């Protein structure tokens, strides 16, 4: 059971890390967010549920694909390089492909094998470790990466959305917020809140970030003296929470932060677990992914040129379709890379082939490289963190091998 001892260490880490800052009231002391010494941006999007790389970046040049999947896959993929073709629900990304801002990596996976559990798979992906029992599976690789970056502060990395992502958890305090968040308390009550949270590090940390961000981001909000007016405002805003979680708003909010001091942003897009009727069930998730990438580009403006986006998933899916025109949990999958800093218009990776004897356990696409290897080289080229630090602290046990040079 993964989370058992994880929380203890996480709690201790948190207590130690914020022991001093917890007492500092955001109202008394203005919080300043330190910046790292780089203007490059990294966006990490976790695709939860196991994206089917073979459908999204389809190896249509291999006739075996159609034999394995008579009832799965779209009819009109857009050609990428003569062998691979892009799912039509991502055709809105073709201009990015043409301009060299979009790339894919194929036949990659984390080191996770055989059990094919979403939840362990995602924990391994976000912890960046080789196995679930690793000593540091309780912290995310982004958090450990920031420890290698001098000047990294609380708002250097940001997770966006209502979930709490393992990707960012760890010794360093990170920031998370949801686009619709706000706080309508009088200054006096905010002060009192500070007092009652003081002795509880978990609440003190979350409360201090919440009050600071609400003040920064919702400057236009007026706290009304009329309770009824205030309640109506709050209800209206809470209702907005329901529609705000779409990828567009997550991406727009991430871009908003990235235009400021934030250098690394992360959020997730779910809906990839296409066990049945994949041809229709994958459409929604692809629409969200496309919207996230196009929104990031448009909202980041000039900053897009200094940005690299990496989308990763916990595993790929079975090569053969299952009994219900869907696919089951597999191993090798694909990554999506985008941004002005990406050396695009390429499908990276060593293609293993689709013959029975080329598959993993005669079932899944054989992974020929590690998701972490591509990510690690991106980080090295973006932020100058050395390969030895990456292999020791950020992705322990990883052999980075040669540089695939995905960053231009």
């Amino acid at each position: 059971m993964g989370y058992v001892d994880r929380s203890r260490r996480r709690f201790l880490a948190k207590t130690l890390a914020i022991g001093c800052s917890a007492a500092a009231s955001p109202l008394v002391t203005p919080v300043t967010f330190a910046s790292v010494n780089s203007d490059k941006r990294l966006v990490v999007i976790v695709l939860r549920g196991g994206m089917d790389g073979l459908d999204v970046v389809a190896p249509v040049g291999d006739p075996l694909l159609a034999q394995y999947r008579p009832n799965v896959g779209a009819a009109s993929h857009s050609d990428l390089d003569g062998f691979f073709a892009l799912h039509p629900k991502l055709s809105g990304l073709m201009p990015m492909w043409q301009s060299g801002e979009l790339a894919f990596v194929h036949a990659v996976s984390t080191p996770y094998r055989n059990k094919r559990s979403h939840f362990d798979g995602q924990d391994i992906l976000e912890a960046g470790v080789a196995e679930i029992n690793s000593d540091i599976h309780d912290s995310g690789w982004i958090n450990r990466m920031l420890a290698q970056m001098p000047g990294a502060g609380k708002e250097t990395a940001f997770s966006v959305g209502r979930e709490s992502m393992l990707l960012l958890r760890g010794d360093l305090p990170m920031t998370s917020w949801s686009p619709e968040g706000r706080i309508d308390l009088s200054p006096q009550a905010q002060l009192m809140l500070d007092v009652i949270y003081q002795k509880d590090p978990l609440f003190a940390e979350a409360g201090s970030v919440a009050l600071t961000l609400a003040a920064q981001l919702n400057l236009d909000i007026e706290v009304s003296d009329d309770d009824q007016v205030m309640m109506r405002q709050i209800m209206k805003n809470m209702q907005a929470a329901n529609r705000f979680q779409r990828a567009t708003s997550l991406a727009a909010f991430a871009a908003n932060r990235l235009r400021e001091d934030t250098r690394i942003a992360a959020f997730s897009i779910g809906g990839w677990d296409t066990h049945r009727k994949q041809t229709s069930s994958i459409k929604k998730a692809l629409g969200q992914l496309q919207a996230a990438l196009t929104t990031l580009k448009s909202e980041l403006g000039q900053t897009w040129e200094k940005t690299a986006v990496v989308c990763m998933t916990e595993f790929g899916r079975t090569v053969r379709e299952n009994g219900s025109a869907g696919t089951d949990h597999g191993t090798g999958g694909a990554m999506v890379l985008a941004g002005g800093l990406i050396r695009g218009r390429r499908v990276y990776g060593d293609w293993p082939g689709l013959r029975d004897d080329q598959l993993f356990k005669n079932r899944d696409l054989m992974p020929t490289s590690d998701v972490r290897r591509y990510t690690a080289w991106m980080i090295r080229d973006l932020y100058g963190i050395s390969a030895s630090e990456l292999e020791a602290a950020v992705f322990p046990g990883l052999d980075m091998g040669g540089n695939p040079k995905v960053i231009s």
Partner: protein
Amino acid sequence: MVHSLETIAAIRFGYGFRPGEPDLGARDQLLQQISGADLAQQAFPTPGFQERMGLHRSFRALHKRVKNEDESAEPELKKAKVARRALVVNDVNMRCARAIFSPFGFRERLAAFWADHFTVIAKGQMPRVIHGDFLDRAIRPHIAGRFADLLIASTTHPSMLIFLDQTKSIGPNSKIGKKKKRGLNENLAREVLELHTMGVGGSYTQADVRQLAELLTGLIVTRKGMQYSKGAAEPGAETVLGKSYGGEKASETDILAFLEDLAVHPDTANYIAQKLVVHFVSDEPDPEMVAHIRDAFLTSGGDLQSVYTAMLEHPGAWVDIGGKVKQPFDFIVSGYRALNVQRDVISNLKPRDVWRIFEIPLISMGQPPRRALGPNGWPEEAEAWITPQGLAARLQWALVASARFGDGLDPRDFVLSSLREVAGETLKFAVAGSEKKIEGLALALSSPEFNRR
């Protein structure tokens, strides 16, 4: 120990204090809550499967008529749509009302624990309509019996079969499989092993998942509920976890025999014991306490009364409260209890009010009803809930709820009646120092003391 047994029982094993409700004491009294008739379900009833399916089917029939340009069906379709929404909303209303007004908080907490353990995410109209039946017919009646019965009832309920794609899994060598060229879908087989019984660390392999997927074929859903279809079942025996089930002819009995064995597997006992301690006591469970409960599970053959007895007799169950954070549902339920919201205000609400009083706050705190993030249910660890955005949503709800239901309450009394000896001096001082009554109540509800258990 600073906290009294009564306080620990109410906050850790129930939904907190409600003014005017007698204390139920601790240990043995808690166990008494789960024997006897389900009074909360009787007081706040929901319709059964047939009524739900009847409503769904008549909606479908009317929808078809309107689609075929039969305008005379339009008013009826509108009515059917309203009735369908009312039914789904009523399910949420009843679930919340039971938790708020039942004096048997431990029983309600157990029902919620098992509903989360056997998570079903209701996607689509039909699954939404029958979801309440899953909670009230598959889960609730079995929470104090044998784990095997609970496992069988939940695994074979239409809601679960639909959610985890079992209805789409056909034996490739069955009559239907051959004729329609259909095959297996291993979703339910995997999650039964990984999430419902042995845990992901359990001693099963991919081959077991595959064999179990074959064994489970034949479970289908019709308008009458779950049915066993021989035509969809894979013929021949399957070997799962080293034991062979069934013979040449497939039968439902083989599936039940396997689930009986799985329910008392040592890995299952360990996993369930662990989950109980994590849910009720601490994100970092005491291995000795887990072992104590696991042993009771094994010696009793998975009798849940014995399992809960083992949990409550262990000293670890009675350490001071604070090791857990209340999940959003538990947070708002205990809040409405503390605010002494009256029964006539909360039962038989209009859909709009159920939306405002329950659904909207839960959505904004990250726990929308019927929509867990995955089949593994809601996260347990405190850090998953007390995030800046999660805490901001709790604050906002605390203000709204205090404004709506806090009339006539003095914040200084409120903090004592809702938290008793758990309220610290700092909290009492802060609440008394508020400028507005509403903010005083909201501060008490937003405090670490009220959010922890």
